[in-house]
């Protein structure tokens, strides 16, 4: 197999190198996303559990540390920080307080979503483009194989077979890069969508709590 790759023409080699890099990158991102989504889901679950078990909001806010927090915790922190800022000021409208806290949480939510969805577009690109790149390498390799065949008086399968085999490796690599990328892309978009729903419902519910607190004042 190594000989097949080594005997390929320069174009096919370049295509193979490109596909190898794309495959490496996509697998790297796949694992990064895997860890990130897993961590986000776990932290969101933990935070929701502590939050709905009636923990003190002030305590939760003070316990917050940026290094060891999840996305949901950061959203809560942004909203509660904004709420506290208004709370310190006298003569503030309750609806304005909740609205600004909600806006802050929205902004935090957007940031978190952005970071969660980063690299997903790369996976989508690899998934859709690398089969074509591989196909290009294959077509090029087969073209060369047949051009070599033109110089042979008696054409046999053994003259074309190595060229086609080496060309087909490019398609195999393209598919190898594409299939996991597509699967991962679909899986992660679904996971992140579910997380987004979770965050949004938390924002709504937390806004309600904040509004109640603002009215109590």
């Amino acid at each position, binding site marked *: 197999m*190594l000989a097949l790759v080594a005997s390929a023409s320069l174009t096919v080699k370049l295509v193979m190198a490109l596909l190898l890099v794309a*495959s*490496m990158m996509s*697998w790297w991102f*796949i694992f990064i996303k895997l860890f990130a989504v897993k961590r986000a889901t776990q932290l969101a679950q933990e935070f929701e559990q502590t939050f709905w078990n009636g923990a003190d909001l002030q305590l939760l806010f003070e316990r917050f540390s940026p290094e060891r927090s999840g996305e949901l915790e950061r959203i809560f922190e942004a909203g509660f920080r904004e709420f506290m800022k208004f709370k310190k000021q006298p003569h503030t409208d309750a609806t304005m307080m909740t609205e600004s806290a909600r806006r802050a949480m929205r902004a935090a939510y957007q940031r978190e979503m*952005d970071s969660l969805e980063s690299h997903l577009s790369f996976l989508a690109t690899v998934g859709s483009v690398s089969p074509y790149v591989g196909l290009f390498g294959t077509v090029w390799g087969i073209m060369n194989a047949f051009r070599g065949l033109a110089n042979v008086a008696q054409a046999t399968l053994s003259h074309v077979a190595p060229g086609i085999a080496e060309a087909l490796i490019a398609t195999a690599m393209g598919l190898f890069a594409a299939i996991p990328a597509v699967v991962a892309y679909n899986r992660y978009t679904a996971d992140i969508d579910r997380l987004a729903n979770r965050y949004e419902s938390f924002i709504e519910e937390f806004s309600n709590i904040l509004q109640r607190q603002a009215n109590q004042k």
Partner: protein
Amino acid sequence: MYAMATPTSGRLPAAVLAVLVHLLFFALLVYSLDWKTHAPEPVMVELWQPQVASYQPPPKVVKQVEKVSKPEPVQPNPDIALADKKRKLAEQAAQLAAQKQAAQKLAQAAQVKAQAQQLLDKKLVEQKITEQKQAQQAKADVQKQQAQKQAALRQLIAQQSQTELKNESARALVGQKNAASASKQAADMSKMQNEYVEKIKAKIRGKIILPDSLQGNPQARFAVSLLPTGEVLQVKLLRGSGQSAYDDAVERAILKASPLPMPPDASLMAQFRELDLKFAKDEK
């Protein structure tokens, strides 16, 4: 500001895992494509090709000899007709010998050609063989030497795979036998050809009824087309004797003599489909 905290946390293990996945895939590919290592075996089979080619030529040689020796039976007769009986006999013997020699030479030349062809085929497989071919062409006059060289060549090839050794030496022997029998066959055939031409002429001569008015020693040449059974299809006067009475008499005799005696050998028979016969009145 904390947004990037999450992705960075798993970056290194993710990279390691990505490399691991690729190594795994690569190992799988190398392992599953292991059949590629068996691919060189068909290349070994190519060694058979030159031997098959070397085995085929002998029939070609025979055919070429037949073709070349076709006009020969015509040559002796006119001279013989002109000569005395003693001289005629002597010349006939000499010419027969000459014919045999010529046939042998032709056979040898044809064999050399055939061998050259074989060697051209082999050249595609091995460069060594081209050198051997040149050497062979230089010393092409002695047939046995060639056969020996061929055998040596084949043995060289055979050394590459011992299992083929027996086959090849057997083939070399067959090739030698063929080469030897080809020259014998050629000689036999020219002999047989002359014999049958004489038989045909004798039969025709027996049917000739000569008119009384003939003068001197008229000679006529006829092209006779025959069916494979020996029946006369067409008689054409190639060169008249100048006395139409003699020409007509001979033509009638040829038609009467049908069916003419044909050689039993199928390959020789092909030479007898078109005959060029010469007749002289005094020739008996």
